[in-house]
């Protein structure tokens, strides 16, 4: 049982404050959907949790099981069990899915411990998960998560369709077995079939020992993945949290309602 706590988080780029006091507690076994319009800071929140270096945290904290993770680099956070599924996964020429994932899995599962990684500059091959074992597991999971086995040899996201990219993100999550997964608009740009596949993947991975922060613009994915909580994110902070009914309310009334009812009411000018 783990807990990810975000406490009064303020984040800026330069002089612009993007997150204005976010509070959120996520437990293992929970799916917490966070809905908000474009530009509300949802993606910033996901990047900051994952440890993107370009943001300045001006106030507040992020704690995993009581320990602050703010001083950790992105790779350390990944190794403590935080996973970010990107809205726009980058394509990296010449780097095959299997090759990079084997190194990632080896690090996360402790085949390359922190000390030896630092000493040898994390030399690939110093401590990797045995190839056969890795291959077997990857093949099994590729089948389970509907990723064609040819993708193992393909270069990361190069020439992948939108759906293929998102499915590969889910596959990586399955291999890395995080404690908490932040899914940044994993539903965006997908047709209904692709959405179904991605949602099935999430449901398979939604076990009692894992928590999800499901960031989305649309209610649509929540027809397939049932959240325990739904928050509405607006103007850099959470303006309402409730059960699944919040998503339906939002679907019905739209973000304009949020602006008029919730924001105006919550922030006295």
């Amino acid at each position, binding site marked *: 049982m783990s807990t990810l706590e975000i406490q009064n988080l303020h984040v800026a780029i330069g002089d612009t404050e993007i997150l204005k006091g976010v509070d959120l507690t996520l437990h293992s076994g929970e799916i917490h959907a966070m809905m908000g319009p474009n530009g509300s800071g949802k993606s910033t929140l996901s990047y900051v949790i*994952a*440890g*993107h*270096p*370009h943001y300045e945290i001006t106030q507040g904290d992020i704690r995993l099981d009581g320990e602050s993770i703010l001083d950790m*680099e*992105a*790779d350390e*956070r*990944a*190794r403590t069990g935080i*996973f*970010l599924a*990107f809205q726009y*996964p*980058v394509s*990296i*020429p*010449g*780097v095959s899915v299997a*090759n*990079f*994932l084997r*190194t*990632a*899995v080896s*690090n*996360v599962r402790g085949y390359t411990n922190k000390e030896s*990684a*630092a000493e*040898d*500059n*994390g*030399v*690939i*091959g110093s401590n990797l998960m045995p190839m056969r074992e890795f291959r077997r597991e990857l093949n099994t999971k590729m089948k389970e998560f509907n990723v064609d086995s040819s993708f193992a040899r393909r*270069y990361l996201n190069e020439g992948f369709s939108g759906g293929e990219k998102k499915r590969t993100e889910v596959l*990586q999550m399955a291999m*890395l077995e995080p404690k908490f997964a932040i899914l940044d608009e994993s539903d965006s740009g997908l047709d209904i079939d692709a959405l179904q596949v991605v949602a099935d993947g999430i449901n398979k991975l939604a076990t009692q020992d894992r928590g999800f922060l499901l960031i989305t613009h649309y209610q649509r994915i929540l027809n397939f993945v049932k959240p325990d909580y739904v928050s509405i994110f607006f103007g850099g902070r959470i303006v309402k949290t409730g059960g699944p009914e919040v998503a339906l309310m939002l679907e019905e009334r739209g973000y304009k309602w949020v602006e008029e009812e919730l924001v105006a009411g919550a922030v006295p000018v």
Partner: protein
Amino acid sequence: MTLLIEKPREIVEATAGFSQETVRLASQAKNEPDWMLDFRLRAWQLFESMPWPRPTDEDWRRTRLTGFNLDNYAPYASPKGTAERQDLDPDLLEALDEMDSAASLIYQDGGLLYRQESDRLARQNVIFTDLQTAVQQHPELVQRYFMTEAVSPDANKFTALHAALWDTGSFIFVPRNTTITLPLQAILNQGDGVGGYHHTLLVVEEGAEVTVVDDLMGAENAFQASVVELIVKDNSQVRYINLQDFEHTAWNFLTGRAVLGKDTDLRWIQVSWGSRLTKAFLDLDLRGQGGHGELLGLYFPTRRQHIDHQTLQLHRVPNCFSDLLFNGALKHRARSVYMGIIKVLPGAQKTDAFQRNGNLILDRSARADSIPGLEIEADDVRCTHAATAAQVEDEYVFYLMARGLTRPQAERMIVQGFLQGVLDRVPVESVMHKLEKVISRKISR
């Protein structure tokens, strides 16, 4: 496998400095026939008559020889005889064993050090021997092909010097319709403080197939002026890998040309890891219709290394294909130069030629110059060229780190990915693994 143990030749102390007399002594020490002595002396005259490269020469504008002076080196090394396998230096043994080869030659101190032969090759009438032995045993072949077809002594100042003083090197002759599956391997471990002149002369007859690997190392505080000649006759297939990993104190000058006949298939992989400075002239000379030539290069200078490749894809006849891809990564204050020309002569219609040079700049202080070029005198051709210089994308690094890779791992993976386009086309698996290891090492440093 047989071992030839030779007594050390009589050691002739090189006279101070480079002179005609030096050339004469070098030839004498090898008991060479008169025709080779004459060849060397003519080349020496040529060398003396040619000016040193000047910064105003187009070829040398971006690669200066400041600090290079022949007087700092012994003109040539004196061979110390051959060795048994168990006496080989561990580095040489490793280089020998890391590759599964049909036969191997190791050179050191200006001569042959070790020979691992194959009875099978002998039965196939394949000649794979050191060039000095070939001069004695196959004089007609050597006279016909040595610096006559591909690279002539007057190509540049360094080829003239090479012709006058050449020492180590291999003569490879693959008869008609002969296929050699495993690579032929030649290893050079050049000594310290001395001039070296390594030669590779490959003659592949009609319908034959061969892979040759030159593995070059050593040369601490030394210079090397090497020549590579690949004569690829009609319908034959050649894979050639030149793997240069000299010490970072070495000056390295390479001139190479492949001459391709009709319906040939050549892939040349040039790897330039080592040396303080490299200037390499590499030419594909397509002389027969239906020729297919690939010239692939990898470089990764670090610290203050300077690596310069100058290429020519010469299309003399119609219906040929040439593809060039040089990819390099640069660290610290390193510098690279790539200059390339696709030249299509009048009448060489239906030419298909590509030229790409990509550079990945890992440090702000590194610099890559890329000057691609086309000279086209035919009107029905398809020629493209492209040059890129990029830095490691922060978003790539963040993505990989968010998956648990350390920053060095992420950077290495991105660099290796960048070089993968060339690595994927290395035809010998053991060589590919070796290259990957060197890349890891260079990134970590």
